[in-house]
């Protein structure tokens, strides 16, 4: 479904992605794990069209989408839930959801989607008129995911959804991701919380300073001694 080949991205002199290649099959959860600064967000932002690739290719459903504008990529069905949630703080929960459905023109469909999100995340329904900035961290993460789902993506890119959340909330978020995937949405899950990510993912890639250093089935990667030492060691 998604095929990334030899992707290279620079920030000025910093060579943030140095020939990254990976792929995702329809229906999969693929997790990208790696330490802070490995280039995970850079990779998602390049797929989303926010950053230009100087070399390499992003293909989606057999179509070259490298360096397409972000709004066109969203319209193709690839939606990113960015790191740090990035809720529109001065807009209500409802308006945040409406922004998520920006590409949807059918008002009835938007209303149905909102209902669906309120059913999935009842707390958002209760807070629908509240400003996004006044929600708690966990509620904001749910809103960010719900906002991402408003466009009915075929492929959802999640950038560190568990960041800064309590263990109970982390569990809830991962359950949600699993259920999103069960209902047919493919997922790229970027995480530093490798343990949890590897449990729900089908396959995994390990990113280190802009390069893929390991890939395989999530179960295999979970058993890999290097991964255990570097990413799961503490636990």
């Amino acid at each position: 479904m998604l095929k990334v080949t030899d992707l290279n991205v620079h920030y000025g002199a910093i060579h943030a992605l140095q020939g990254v290649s990976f792929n995702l099959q329809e229906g999969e959860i693929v997790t990208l794990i790696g330490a802070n600064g490995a280039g995970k967000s850079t990779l998602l932002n390049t797929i989303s069209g926010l950053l230009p690739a100087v070399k390499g290719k992003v293909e989606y459903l057999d179509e070259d989408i490298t360096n397409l504008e972000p709004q066109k990529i969203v319209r193709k069905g690839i939606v990113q839930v960015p790191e740090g949630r990035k809720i529109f703080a001065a807009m209500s929960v409802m308006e945040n959801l409406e922004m998520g459905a920006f590409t949807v023109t059918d008002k009835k469909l938007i209303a149905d989607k909102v209902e669906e999100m309120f059913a999935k995340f009842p707390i958002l329904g209760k807070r629908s008129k509240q400003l996004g900035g006044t929600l708690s961290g966990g509620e904001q993460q749910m809103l960010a995911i719900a906002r991402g789902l408003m466009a009915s993506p075929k492929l959802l890119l999640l950038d560190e959804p568990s960041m800064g959340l309590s263990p109970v909330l982390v569990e809830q978020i991962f359950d949600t991701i699993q259920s999103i995937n069960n209902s047919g949405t493919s997922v790229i899950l970027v995480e530093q919380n490798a343990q949890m990510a590897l449990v729900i993912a089908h396959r995994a890639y390990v990113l280190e300073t802009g390069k893929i250093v390991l890939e395989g089935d999530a179960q295999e990667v979970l058993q890999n001694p290097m991964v255990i030492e570097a990413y799961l060691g503490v636990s």
Partner: protein
Amino acid sequence: MENEIRPPRRYKRSKLPKLVRWIFGLIVLSYFFWRLYTVIIVQNEYTPDIWVRLLISGLVIGGVYSLIAIGYTLVYGILRMINFAHGEVMMIGTFAGYFVFEATNAIRFTSSTGEITSLSNAQPFLSILLAFIVGMTVAATSGFLLEKIAYRPLRKAPRLIPLISAIGASIFLQNLAQLLFSPLVRDYKNPDLIARGQGWAITVAGARLTIPYTGVLTFSLSIILMFALYTMVRKSKLGKSMRAVAADKSTAALMGIDVNGVISQTFIISGMLAGAAGVMWGLHNGLVYYYVGFLPGIKAFTSAVLGGIGNIPGAMLGGMLLGMIESIGPTALGISYQLKDVLAFVILIIILIFRPSGILGEVLSEEKV
């Protein structure tokens, strides 16, 4: 990725020690109150009708300032830059309206009663409507092109660079207008229905005064446009996407919003409001020339800062306030009416010292648009 150009949550306070600022503020305030007391209570030369007249003219000019100020605030909210060429966009609108009235005035025919009339007098509503439509369209187009040519290529440059480009664009547009339309000061040809100086006669405390038709038109139309704009920003899809882009361009793009498109539309809307203000200015003040946008532009910028730049209700409030201050201030303080411009800028400086974020700027600091 768009650079994360986040504004400081609060403007940095001036470095003056608090005590000095307070003492200075107290002196200025006591001076103002002392002047007000002397002029209004002690001297008591002015009859109520004079105050009413000043109030009316303050509201009218305030409406125009507000409309232009909204343009500064919208653009600042979205690009964090002051569009110093915005006054020239208004000037272009004034000229566009001027040519519509010239044209409708030039078309003459013999009416059924045998008199020779012009189209602008035979169909005043139509020609006024046409002038506003043309003025707004032309100004909107200039705003759109201004952004595309002078600002968009510099989007990722340091913040000072587009500012310099804006000043350059302003000078360029003034000179272009001078070249195209000559340096002449021309008369606006109002339809007789809203001839300048004509109005409704009212009596205030035994004195007669007129409420000018052009003033009523200007004030009511600016209120309508402000209301429409405010509703648009709060409720419409475009308005919401403008707020999203103002808050965070990258995240807005991740929602599927065409960020460049929204920026263009912001300039178009700002241009429309400035164009309407320009036609009003021409109808009410009667003169048009290549630098007609300069003073209203700077005053509207002052209004936007006064109200809290980036804040729409702030721009409306700031415009109205500045209009009033300018109109009533000189008389109330017993200073020469010629000093009204100076007074406006003194107010600006005082606000910048004591409340740099403007009147509504801090309370609604998150609400950038």
